[in-house]
């Protein structure tokens, strides 16, 4: 039996599916915190979630017959649920509501690694030239310049700012190499949102979110969001760009060992470029998260 998740993790909203990819009148099952849950959408398009009791993918269902439901909410195109008592609002991404943005899911992809490892990889710029060669980085421009990290007390999130990196092809809309500025937020233990200079409009930023669904302590599903300023590319083009990047990260992530994220500062040696990862690990530790991590020995 897997151990029960810590109370903080249990009471969080967790992403489970891209809402409009859920079939209407049919069941889709997935794992959340070691529990099998069933999902569907009613004819009104609203998602419904419940703890599965032997249902199988593709079973037909009328969502109105589901009485014992888990709480659900839809945000940023995704369905979120909670196995405990949802305590707080979901974190805000105000840009998502801007009328001229192209918002899209980019697929929900299973990865054999813990959710916190996937968040940490998302925060890392050091791997750009080696893993995302000729897209997000290229040799010899490998330096991660000094950047700022803080934990915002007010918003309870990790914030990394003034992250700069020379990128050959920063986005689908990029036509030349540019020095890109990033802001990273970690507003949820298993979600991160990044803002990067937009090649099409210097005054605005493209927004990319990675929302991790912790399936077990060592496996998760990455749900990718793009909220872009791009007046020329198609959704298919924009998805392809993001999937190309994510497909490069996947084998690197799955080769990380141990698969859970160690929170003891002495267990993996950080370098200066890992400042945001150090703050993230400390933040998880202070919150009392033990799911998907190796907690610091007390």
């Amino acid at each position: 039996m897997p151990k029960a998740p810590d109370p903080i993790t249990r009471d969080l909203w967790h992403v489970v599916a891209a809402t409009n990819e859920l079939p209407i009148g049919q069941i889709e099952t997935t794992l959340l915190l070691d529990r099998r849950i069933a999902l569907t959408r009613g004819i009104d398009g609203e998602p419904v979630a419940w703890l599965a009791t032997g249902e199988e993918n593709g079973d037909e269902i009328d969502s109105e017959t589901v009485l014992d439901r888990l709480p659900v909410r839809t945000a940023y195109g995704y369905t979120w649920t909670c196995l405990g008592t949802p305590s707080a609002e979901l974190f805000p991404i105000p840009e998502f509501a801007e009328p001229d943005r192209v918002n899209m899911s980019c697929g929900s992809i299973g990865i054999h690694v813990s959710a916190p490892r996937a968040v940490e990889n998302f925060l890392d710029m050091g791997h750009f030239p080696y893993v995302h060669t000729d897209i997000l980085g290229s040799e010899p421009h490998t330096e991660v310049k000094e950047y700022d990290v803080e934990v915002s007390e007010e918003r309870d999130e990790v914030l990394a700012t003034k992250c700069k990196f020379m990128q050959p092809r920063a986005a689908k809309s990029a036509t030349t190499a540019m020095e890109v500025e990033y802001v990273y937020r970690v507003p949820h233990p298993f979600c991160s949102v990044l803002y990067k200079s937009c090649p099409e409009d210097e005054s605005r930023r493209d927004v990319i979110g990675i929302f991790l669904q912790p399936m077990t302590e060592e496996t998760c599903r990455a749900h990718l969001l793009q909220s872009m300023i791009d007046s020329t590319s198609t959704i298919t083009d924009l998805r392809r760009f993001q999937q190309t990047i994510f497909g490069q990260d996947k084998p690197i992530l799955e080769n990380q060992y141990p698969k859970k994220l160690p929170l003891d500062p002495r267990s993996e040696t950080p370098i200066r470029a890992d400042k945001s990862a150090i703050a993230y690990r400390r933040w998880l530790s202070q919150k009392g998260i033990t799911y998907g991590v190796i907690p610091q020995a007390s």
Partner: protein
Amino acid sequence: MDCPVKPGNDGQQNFGEPMITLYDFELSGNCYKLRLLMNILDVAYGIHPVDFFPGREHKSDWFLRLNPFGQLPVLQDGELTLSDSGAILAYLAKKYDTSGQWFPDDPAVTAEILRWHAVADDITATSSAARLALGYGYNFDIEKSRKGAHRIFRLMDEHLWFGEKSGRDWLCAPSHPTTADIACFPYVMLSEEGGISRQDYPALRRWTDRVRRVPGFVVMSGIFPAGPAKT
């Protein structure tokens, strides 16, 4: 939207109109086979991206008109529309390989290549199925797929090991790679995404290094270049 590309320069616009259009999904190993061979042969082509996942565009009406089987890849060369990666590899080699090496005319070698194209389809049905089940939510039997892939990998490993002992570096008899090597390569390389380790198959791993050193080799997402060869 069509994105004309030059070989090895994916996504960069050029202003010539290539005759060849590949209906393509970046994370598909079967599409990658064609990108790889066209790059090796220095054939110019355009990419028409297909939203296989999550959009399931390969089951859309417009795509089913191109390929009623609803499978990627599809390749158009002028008026000709082709599907099935193995068939398209043979076509590209016969039409554009001036060296005649990638799909030789010799009847025995042709039979050997087609035999390995069939193995490549079995690798897709096992190794790729496990990857799709774990990563992309497909309802395939993961344990059965893994077992099937291990059985094929063990046979390939033996075949390649005996080949190395007799001076044969590739899947087929000729002293150079053929489309058989291209067809079998991607879903061997992507097996770990399906939880299928290649640790027990050293000759298979050495062969993947040799494929990655073929002049004109390009990567796809999830496949990295080989390290420098041991001297």
